[in-house]
């Protein structure tokens, strides 16, 4: 059911740009783009916090460096945007590795939070100096001219990637179920088999809807002016990359390495006694996190078309990573996405009506969630959905049973 919900949501989100004109919610598309980019950022933050127990107060270092490195490639070297994004994510992984090596003596708890904060502040105060305004753009920032490719109407084709991944996922599940049902031939597996054969119809329907959505979107874009096209294209790109990151993290946490991470988080001494190299495990996690965060930075410059030290390296951005993760819930992989989307929509949408009070509202919700719903909104949302559909689903699959739920 978890899959079904995510597929339905995806199709709705794909169709959303078509409804914008009909419903008159032009602002929502840019808000959602920002929400997706921040969701990617929040995923990388909560991955470290939830699976490694590392509270990274210097996380916007990855974000900012990703954004700036992409900008340099676009402005100075003239690298085409997709390649620039790829290169800056690779560089982001190297930055993650560097951070892991610099902090190797204190990769736990409060010392880690402080040393990453220090690293961030050193880079931040360097970039804020007027002497370095050539590389930092100082207060008005570096201006990014949008790449030509973004005015093309074929960009929505990128979401075929999502489609392929969903198909592979479903086929994989079918194969597993088939193997299960053939190995032990009892009543429950027989039931499952019939359930799947029913699902094939739904699958075909889904394929048709998805492909027609893409085709309609492309034809719709062709009839629009370039600025409008650009905003929808950026929306599609960020939606696609969010889904790719989400799926790859989700596959990652079903691998044995995730259990090793959780062991290290809960009891590092015991993990080392069992023969795990805890530094190596943490370094791998930091590399992954750095890659994802710099990808979100690279996408952010498309959205804002301007980058300055205060938006890229602000320590408040790291704090917001924590806010998103905690409001959504850390241990469910969907948590940070829920948190980031909710907070972004709330702040950006309310700020039209109430000005600065929208941030106050975020703070109040944040404290309320921390005090009264310590497992995060996504956990309670999931339970509510389960009750509505009244099926006995567990939150984690059997393989993830080791994930502890009680502590944040």
């Amino acid at each position, binding site marked *: 059911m978890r899959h079904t919900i995510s597929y339905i949501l995806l199709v709705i989100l794909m169709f959303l740009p078509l409804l914008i004109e009909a419903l008159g919610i032009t602002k929502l598309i840019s808000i959602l783009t920002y929400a997706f980019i921040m969701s990617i950022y929040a995923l990388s933050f909560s991955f470290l916090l939830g699976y490694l127990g590392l*509270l990274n107060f210097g996380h916007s270092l990855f974000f900012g460096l990703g954004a700036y490195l992409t900008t340099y490639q676009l402005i100075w070297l003239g690298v085409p945007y997709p390649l620039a994004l790829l290169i800056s994510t690779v560089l982001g992984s190297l930055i993650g590795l560097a951070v892991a090596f610099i902090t190797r*003596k*204190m990769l736990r708890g*409060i*010392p880690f939070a*402080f*040393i990453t*904060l*220090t*690293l961030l*502040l*050193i880079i931040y*105060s*360097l970039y*804020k*100096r007027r*002497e370095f305004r050539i590389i930092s753009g100082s207060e008005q920032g570096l201006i990014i001219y949008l790449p030509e490719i973004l005015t093309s109407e074929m960009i929505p084709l990128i979401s075929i990637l999502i489609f392929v991944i969903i198909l592979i996922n479903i086929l994989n599940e079918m194969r597993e179920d088939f193997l299960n049902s053939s190995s032990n031939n009892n009543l429950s597996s027989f039931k499952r088999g019939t359930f799947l054969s029913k699902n094939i119809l739904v699958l075909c329907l889904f394929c048709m809807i998805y492909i027609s959505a893409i085709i309609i979107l492309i034809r719709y874009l062709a009839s629009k002016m370039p600025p409008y096209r650009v905003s929808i294209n950026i929306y599609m790109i960020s939606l696609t990359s969010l889904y790719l990151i989400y799926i790859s993290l989700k596959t990652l946490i079903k691998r044995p390495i995730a259990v090793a991470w959780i062991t290290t988080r809960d009891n590092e001494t015991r993990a080392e006694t069992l023969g795990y190299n805890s530094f190596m495990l943490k370094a791998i996690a930091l590399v992954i996190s750095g890659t994802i965060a710099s990808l979100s930075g690279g996408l952010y410059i498309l959205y804002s078309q301007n980058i300055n030290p205060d938006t890229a390296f602000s*320590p*408040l951005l790291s*704090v917001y990573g*924590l*806010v998103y993760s*905690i409001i959504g819930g850390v241990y469910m992989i969907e948590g940070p996405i829920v948190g980031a989307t909710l907070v972004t929509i709330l702040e950006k949408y309310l700020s039209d009506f109430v*000005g*600065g*009070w929208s*941030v*106050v509202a*975020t*703070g*109040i919700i*944040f*404290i309320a969630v*921390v*005090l009264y719903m*310590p497992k995060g909104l996504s956990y309670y949302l999931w339970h509510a959905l389960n009750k509505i559909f009244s099926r006995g689903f567990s939150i984690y699959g059997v393989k993830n049973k080791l994930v502890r739920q009680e*502590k*944040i």
Partner: protein
Amino acid sequence: MSLEMFISALVDGVALGFIFLMLSLGLSIIFGLMRIVNFAHGSLFTLGAYIGYEIASRTNNIIYGILVSLLSIGVIGAFIEKYFLKYRKDPLIQVIVTIGLMIIFDRLAWIKWGDITYIWTPQWLEGSLRIGSIIIYSYRVFIIIVGLIVSAGTYYLFTKTRFGLFVRAGIDDREMIQAFGSNIERLFTITFAIGSMLAGLAGFLLVPWQGVYPLIGTNYLLYAFAIVVIGGLGSIEGTIIASLLIGIIQQLCAYYAPYLTEISVFIVMFIILYLRPQGLFGKVIA
């Protein structure tokens, strides 16, 4: 580039060091006793500065400003401790709650006072003293005097009185003093209130020098973190030495190498953290 300039830089540095001291002493004690990294401390600093500014510029008397900012921030601190932090035993949750409070307070201050920098100086402190060819602003001397009085008082409170004995015992072993029958909940509230009072006072004392703007609390909180980390979390002596050190380093950089002003503090913090993760005077925290 002379001795005079060096001396006035030194005086500025000591004055800034005392402001850092008042700010970070509360942070350090709160961490030592309650194991909370209090992110709302910077916002209390900002609030103290604004409240003191409002009172002092209306009444045109700096003493009223000091008293009101002390008392009101102390009350706010006690309120925060009593209603937001008291019954939550998990330290991480408490840290996260203080982050939420920081977001709320900073934004409320921005809504009320806007992006303008407010500066107000009492007339009798506006001039400067001349000793030979050395020029020293008299307000810096005032800060040093007030800072000396306040920090001596705080030091006396925490080292010589019975209350301070309990606090230091609590820093060493929290469960033991509970077992001896002291009311640790009340101790927490009072300590938190005293720390907040010091932060509010530091904020107000900075108004005539650098003015007050909404983000000043966050900026100075970062310095206070640096100081507390350098001195060792929970160590009173370490905080005193580290804050004077950081104040002097920062002002010397501001006079002789302005491009290093902010970064110098963090580089010192990085080096110390790298060589001694527990800080100069701190104990190893498990």
